[in-house]
């Protein structure tokens, strides 16, 4: 079975082909490719989130990359939600109609399910496990018992961790989105100079709150000499606070669920401090931490193709030609 995956839930336009025997054959992300051939040598400046004009050329590029024809596709999986209604509808409309034209089944996929299963694209990983999804848009702890059996353990009640990184970077004059720049600057900071609170760690529970840290950073910055070293010191204190909070909640989640395997996905999973501290923490609970390949940590088509493959394999598919987008859709 060869499954085409389509992801258009927010900013990225992503497509991928997953084969039952050979695994992932290829994937394409609009922001990372030059679509010369498809546009006759001219690459137009497309507005971000203009999925309509990006999707078909990207699809053609994918087929070319994998040396496949449209007729080789056995099923189509598309992100049905959650996300932006207009963005989702593009992927759903293209996915559902392509499947209809080819006479193959289609399947609407939950975006977060794609993220949760993404580590399995490269490495075998057994259920059950705990997953921390931590990105610019999400901060969630999820218990993954089996395919389609998920339980939300905790989530951010305001800003996502990645969003707090990006906004704090902006407040420190590092541009937007500057989360990665902030993390790099933090390496030059003196860890002991400032101490930031670890939000929501004193109470039991697995929810997060990062909005206050952003304001704390701003106030600290405004009351400082605002020199280069201070900027690095604040970046360092901020990063430590976010990372410690994430690690502590992960540890609590592992204790609470009595599970050993932890998956970290989302853009923030690239953070080195987070990875280091989680490695130490995992040794304490006697477990292991898994990360998807970096390019599959952020939004992509491969995770949708894979989740779609697993669902289709067990006999699920859209019952008829109707399709809809689900901007708000709870996974658990």
């Amino acid at each position, binding site marked *: 079975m060869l499954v085409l995956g389509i992801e258009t839930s927010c900013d990225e336009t992503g497509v991928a082909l997953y084969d039952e025997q050979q695994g992932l054959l290829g994937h394409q992300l609009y922001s990372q490719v030059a679509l010369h051939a498809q546009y006759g040598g001219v690459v137009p400046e497309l*507005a971000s*989130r203009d999925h309509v004009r990006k999707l078909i050329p990207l699809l053609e590029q994918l087929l070319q990359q994998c040396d496949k024809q449209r007729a080789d596709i056995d099923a189509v999986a598309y992100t049905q939600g959650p996300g932006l209604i207009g963005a989702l*509808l593009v992927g759903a409309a293209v996915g559902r109609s392509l499947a209809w034209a080819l006479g193959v089944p289609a399947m609407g996929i939950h975006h977060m399910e794609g993220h949760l299963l993404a580590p399995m694209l490269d490495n075998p990983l057994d259920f059950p496990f705990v997953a921390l999804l931590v990105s610019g848009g999400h901060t969630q702890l999820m218990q993954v018992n089996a395919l389609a059996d998920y339980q939300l353990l905790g989530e951010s009640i305001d800003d*996502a961790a990645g969003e707090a990184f990006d906004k704090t970077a902006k407040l420190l004059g590092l541009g937007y989105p500057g989360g990665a720049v902030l993390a790099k600057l933090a390496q030059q900071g003196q860890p002991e100079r400032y101490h930031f609170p670890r939000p929501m760690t004193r109470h039991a529970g697995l929810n997060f709150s990062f909005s206050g840290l952003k304001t704390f950073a701003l106030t600290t910055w405004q009351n400082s000499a605002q020199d280069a070293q201070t900027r690095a010191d604040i970046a360092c204190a901020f990063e430590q606070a976010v990372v410690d909070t994430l690690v502590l909640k992960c540890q609590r989640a592992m204790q609470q669920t009595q599970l050993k395997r932890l998956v970290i996905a989302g853009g923030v999973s690239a953070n080195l401090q987070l990875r280091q501290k989680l490695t130490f923490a995992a040794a304490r609970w006697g477990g292991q931490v898994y990360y998807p390949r970096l390019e599959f940590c952020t939004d992509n088509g491969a995770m949708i193709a894979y989740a779609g493959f697993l669902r289709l394999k067990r006999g699920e598919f859209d019952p008829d030609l109707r399709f809809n987008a689900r901007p708000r859709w709870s996974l658990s």
Partner: protein
Amino acid sequence: MSHANKLKYQQIYTVSSPEEMQALAGALAVQCVWPMMIFLQGDLGAGKTTFVRGFLRALGYQGTVKSPTYTLVEPYQFGAHKVYHFDLYRLNDAEELEYLGLRDYLSEQAVCLVEWPERGLGALPPADLWVKIEHAGANRLLSLWPKE
């Protein structure tokens, strides 16, 4: 709460805590009529999302009020009434509102609270009310302004 009375235009309210910000927003929410377009103006960390949280709490919403920076819009339903919380911070071009299908939201009989409306000017309908929040050290100064 000291601000629980009817809010006045062009009066500057000094806000010293997130709780006070929410109380002020709550006072506005109970005065609010459907539909309404409210623009929220203020820098990062000024308390715009805190304001919206207070607004929604006063209408009876108990769940989490997440930042819509990533999703650009978060919808809330109160019986027949709808509240949309927009954040246009990540918008590169007002034209994107079209691609996102946001025009459909704007045409509904809803209360729209819009953060970073500057980034959608030209594509957004005019505001019925501007809420301005300014930093003043650890405090915030809040004021309401009628249509432009």
